[in-house]
């Protein structure tokens, strides 16, 4: 039994199932991070004193990471665009680059974390660090999740390209939407935590 509209769009909605599904998922993610940002605002406004982010955190390193993530969003779009043009080889290169850039982001984050932990700056030290570790930690989990999905579409998932290229392209697009969202969250996190 086949579920309708997994690859072809439904005429009256103009969408595939997966497209609606991923946008609904992103809506719930907005609420997840929205609640965390709101909590951050409440705790910060209620605090007697609050350090500026750049006095405690490494701004150049985070700027580098921001550029890494933005670049990975570009390569993600290129990966999808290559599939739209039917160039599977180019797709593999761009998708591989996206995954690698995600990896670079995580490695930089690892050095940042271990630097702070070596200085004795733990989540329990103060609420600034609690917010920092919780928000960036949850974001890192999202980066990791996105990388796992992308790695699947780079490796074993490519079987689908041979049997059903349209569906495969759609799935890569949906994965890309998630990846851009994760990127966007970082673009909010970077000024909020590091600059303000």
């Amino acid at each position, binding site marked *: 039994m086949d*579920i309708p509209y997994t690859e072809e769009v439904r005429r009256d*909605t103009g969408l595939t*199932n997966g497209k609606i599904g991923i946008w609904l998922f992103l809506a719930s993610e907005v609420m997840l991070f929205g*609640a965390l940002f709101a909590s951050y605002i409440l705790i910060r406004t209620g605090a007697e004193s609050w350090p500026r982010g750049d006095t405690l955190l490494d701004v150049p390193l985070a700027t580098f990471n921001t550029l890494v993530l933005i670049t990975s969003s570009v390569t993600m779009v290129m990966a999808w665009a290559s599939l739209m043009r039917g160039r599977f080889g180019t797709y593999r290169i761009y998708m591989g680059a996206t995954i690698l850039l995600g990896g670079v982001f995580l490695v930089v984050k690892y050095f940042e974390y271990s630097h702070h932990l070596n200085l004795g700056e733990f989540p*329990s030290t103060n609420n600034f660090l609690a917010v920092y570790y*919780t928000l960036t930690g949850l974001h890192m989990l999202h980066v990791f999740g996105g990388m796992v999905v992308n790695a699947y579409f780079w490796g074993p998932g490519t079987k689908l390209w041979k049997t059903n290229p349209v569906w495969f392209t759609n799935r890569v697009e949906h994965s890309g939407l998630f990846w851009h969202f994760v990127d966007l969250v970082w673009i909010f996190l970077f000024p909020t935590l590091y600059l303000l």
Partner: protein
Amino acid sequence: MSEQPVVVAPKPPVAHEAHHEELGFWRKYVFSTDHKVIGIQYAITGLLFLLFGFSLMMLMRWQLAYPETALPLFGFFGEASMPGGTMLPEFYNSLGAMHGTIMVFLGVVPLAVGGFGNFVLPLQIGAPDMAFPKLNMISYWCLFLGGVIMLASFFVPGGAANSGWTSYTPLANIATTGQTWWLIGMIFLITSSLLGAINFITTTIQIRAKGLTFWRFPFFVWTQFVTAFLLLLAFPPLESAAVMQLMDRVAGTSFFLPSGLVVSGQVLDVAGGGNPLLWQHLFWFLAHPEVYVLILPAMGIIAEVITNNTRKPLWGYRSMVYSLIFLGFMSFIVWAHHMFMTGMGTAMATFFQTTTMIISIPSIVILTSLIISLWGGSIRFNTPMLFAVAFLPMFGIGGLTGLPLAFNVPDIPLHDTYYVIAHFHYVVAPGTILALFAGIYYWFPKATGRKMNETLGKIHFWGSFVFMNVVFMPMFMVGLAGVSRRLFDGGATYTFAEPVLHWNVVSSWGAWLLGIFQLPFIFNFFWSIRKGEKTDDNPWQATTMEWAAPSPPPHGNFVVAPEAHRGPYEYSVPGAAKDFVPQHEA
């Protein structure tokens, strides 16, 4: 387009043996991706947890009726919880917290949304399955894992979570290990609901049959659709809150811990600077929409059963749908009426009491429409209908007794008393749970091809209806006398409570008798699966599309993909050959 008339399949299941390959036992019944199997898995899990959560309460009712008296034969709970059969306060607190958690998140929601939503919604919209069958399976197993974690937490040192189902901070921050398990369990339950909600919304929008426009949806489909949006958008903030409380408990952060908090005479050694009220806001931002998650599917079931058994169209269908959507929006901006006791400013209190009064209007529109739907119908009083009719006044009592709580001034003396317990239990127990029973009796023939026994059903109905009132009505009196709802002895230590304490005994006996009257249901359920009266595909002569599928529906549901030709409730149409015109008949 070929206009092929939809023929209701003949009874012998020969016509739909279109399985390409037979699935093995595990893929067919355990790790199934078929929405009907998953729906039944959800329903049975929900029913078992309802029974378990109710058992916890029956145990607590002993302590409330006969404080600190040994319960004969219950010494086996052990020294840490009931030494010699006498309940310790800590154990009572665990039971209370877990009763709430289990009833709401593992009982009613899995049954109302997971069970009925999964089983009925795709059939009612003429779909072969849900939009994402594998995701559907994953959401059930997330719920299952969450349930297992919650159950396992009873056996960790210090017992299960004991800070109330609301897990208010800072109390929950400093509670025993069970609270950590509660948080991890909740993260699984939330994930399950989220995935389910995505699936329901996508299915409703995309997989509905040809010709089934939104205004032709049965009311039940509308309620599930709106409920899914509430789950999708209200649950993530609680997930954030659960992550932060987990950080507080495991990593030693201070999101919810204020500076200088004194516990047992010692200043707590934490960074501090957190905000305990933040938890309450995030919790109720979920938990108020959650109230509507509990009640909306129930209203959907009631609408289906009432219109079918009055043989009349639903009165005010469009205004009911508009009310439903409005209710969904409003439910996001009323949450702080649970928090009038926190000493919020008058401006905030005014805002939230105004929105709360406004949200009562659509609920009343829906309830009134359902009552007017009875008018002039030739009512068939079968078991589902009895439950459905009883729902109306019971939900009415629940709703109307909520009005004094919506205003912050009368709320302050009432909030921490049994009055609140009585109020919301009238909404969810004699309200929602009666509706869920109506749904089980109503759709049982679709799931099994057999009807449940009517006599046993009526015994179950009258017993449940009478004793639910015996349990909850006295609580209004106890509450109005000012007895706190958080006392493990039911108020025995307070002199002012003495004149009303005997009502505790009445409530308790009501609860135990209510338990006994569930036995006919349990027996009926299993007996009818094998021995119940066989039925055809449409035993209730209903109009909606689930009855066009064979009973039980095969994998893929319909013999011929149905098309909708008219609205959902064309009963007693003047000039029609019979008193119902199914939606799918050309």
